[in-house]
């Protein structure tokens, strides 16, 4: 993380000055303005120097807008659907129907929980097989009712536990992918925080994939890569760099279609503005996708995924 101490000190000063103005009616607005400008400047400077590892921290920031609270800011009238109809309901992967602009949509999102009790129940946003089976159920519903699907991705990964394996987590993720890739409606994913491996792509393999500026999308956590390849956990920052997990790198690789800028300093500093930017980006892409005939949409999607990485596997020379 960039050194936030200087920023924190300034923030406190600004807050103090505001209080003095409000309570004491003192005429200090000019001083306040100067101080606020310095604060913005400092944030911009720090922010411009972010490493990929810093972004990993921002993506995981405890105050980052995510889960139900963010979905309710981006969409109107979210109505949650519960249960996979096969015997379970996972709080770590949620979904339902909502209005987005003038359209009804189906929505899926990872949930990390707002309270400590919820956070425990959500296992830090790591879904069980039943979560992915509920996602399949909601995808199918979207297909039947011709609702575009909007998927908000934010997970460290699927839950690596005995009960997940006993419930065939691999098969549940594979079914999710198979359903999503053939869904006869526009599909749109946005990586909000962490796009962790199979647990993320299960609901992210969409017609369009967007990322928030400081979100990450990766085949393995930097810590995991450090342990496997560097054989030492302290190499996580290097691994983050090597994995090309940032929105900017992935945009360059052609893996994501758009990067949504965050407020200077990170999305957590202004959740409302983040949600607004997100909403506008989603509406724009939905508009474009909705204008395509189903056959065209499916052909474009097939071509996108059939050909992914094809440039990166080259013909053997000699």
């Amino acid at each position, binding site marked *: 993380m960039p050194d936030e101490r200087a920023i924190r000190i300034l923030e406190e000063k600004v807050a103090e000055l505001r209080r003095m103005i409000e309570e004491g009616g003192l005429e200090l607005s000019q001083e306040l303005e100067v101080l606020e400008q310095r604060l913005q400047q400092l944030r911009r400077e720090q922010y411009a120097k972010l490493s990929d590892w810093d972004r990993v921290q921002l993506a995981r920031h405890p105050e980052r807008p995510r889960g139900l609270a963010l979905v309710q800011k981006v969409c109107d009238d979210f109505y949650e659907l519960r249960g996979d109809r096969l015997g379970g309901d996972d709080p770590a992967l949620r979904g339902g129907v909502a209005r987005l602009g003038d359209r009804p949509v189906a929505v899926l999102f990872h949930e990390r929980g707002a309270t400590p009790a919820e956070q425990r129940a959500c296992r830090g946003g790591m879904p069980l097989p039943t979560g992915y089976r509920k996602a399949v159920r909601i995808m199918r519903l979207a297909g039947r009712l011709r609702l575009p699907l909007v998927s908000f991705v934010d997970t460290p990964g699927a839950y690596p536990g*005995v009960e997940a394996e006993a419930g065939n987590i691999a098969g549940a993720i594979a079914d999710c992918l198979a359903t999503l890739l053939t869904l006869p409606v526009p599909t749109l994913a946005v990586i909000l925080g962490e796009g962790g491996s199979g647990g993320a792509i299960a609901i992210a393999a969409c017609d369009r994939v967007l990322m928030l500026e400081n979100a990450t999308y990766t085949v393995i956590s930097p810590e995991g890569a450090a342990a496997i390849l560097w054989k030492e956990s302290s190499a996580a920052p290097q691994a983050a760099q090597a994995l090309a997990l940032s929105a900017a790198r992935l945009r360059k*690789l052609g893996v994501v279609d758009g990067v949504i800028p965050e407020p200077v300093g990170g999305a957590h500093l202004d959740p409302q503005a983040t949600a607004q930017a997100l909403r506008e980006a989603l509406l724009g892409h939905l508009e474009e996708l909705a204008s395509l005939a189903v056959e065209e949409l499916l052909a474009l999607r097939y071509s996108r995924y059939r050909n992914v990485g094809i440039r990166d596997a080259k013909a053997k020379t000699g």
Partner: protein
Amino acid sequence: MPIRRDSKERYVEVELRRGEETLWERCRACGELVFRRRLKENNYICPKCGAYFFLTAQERVVALIDEGTFQDLTLPLESTDPLSFSDRKPYRDRLREAQETTGLKDAVVVGRGKLAGHPVVLAVMEFRFIGGSMGTVVGEQLAHAMEQAVEAREPFLFVVASGGARVQEGVLSLLQMAKTVAVREQLARQGVPYIAVLTYPSTGGVMASLASLADFTLAEQGALIGFAGPRVIEQTTGQKLPPGFQRAQYALSHGVVDAVVPREGLKGELAHLLDILQGVPSA
């Protein structure tokens, strides 16, 4: 690869063999020196203790496909190292070493041949090539294999030996999950049967995509089948793993596979299935 002993199953893992020609092979499970030809005749199973040796992709092809019928359809592709990845060692060096060890350009062999007289298109993964991991080349080869099966209207056989997605190609590897699943749907649309054979190991990204979506799924006895590796589960959750966890019998009892088959019975079992499926897909 450490020795893995499973009390419930006869299967014991032994270390990867290198390509060098030796007359004798030491079983890492029991220490017995086994004459190589004897080992081959015995399906690469230790005659003393019953441990299964890892099979190379080529050995697997020889074990399953009728002599003289195999036609190699592997595309002439190799990774461009799209991320210029380097950890303690550059990815390019790892690729070159794996290529030297295996004689392959990447972790899969694709071909066409007859299995007990039945024509099939098959893809066989090579575990010695960076853990049988799936990157852009493996994804493309698997897509190609399935397209060949659709074109020839012959069943697709996928022999899995993979630890998961290839870390060194980052999200591009992750996206190969979506790619292979997308092409798998073409088999379904065309009514072409897909049979998966899960061997040691069938885990991670390959298992969470193509390998889990077969019409028929056989597990070689002792196979490791799952998503997260046992060590990751222990470290992340602190859970104690039940005996036989993620092994073939466990997969069978948890509804993940249709049958557990000993190595020496695999070809016969597949032939039986293909007998039943004769006429599928219809011409």
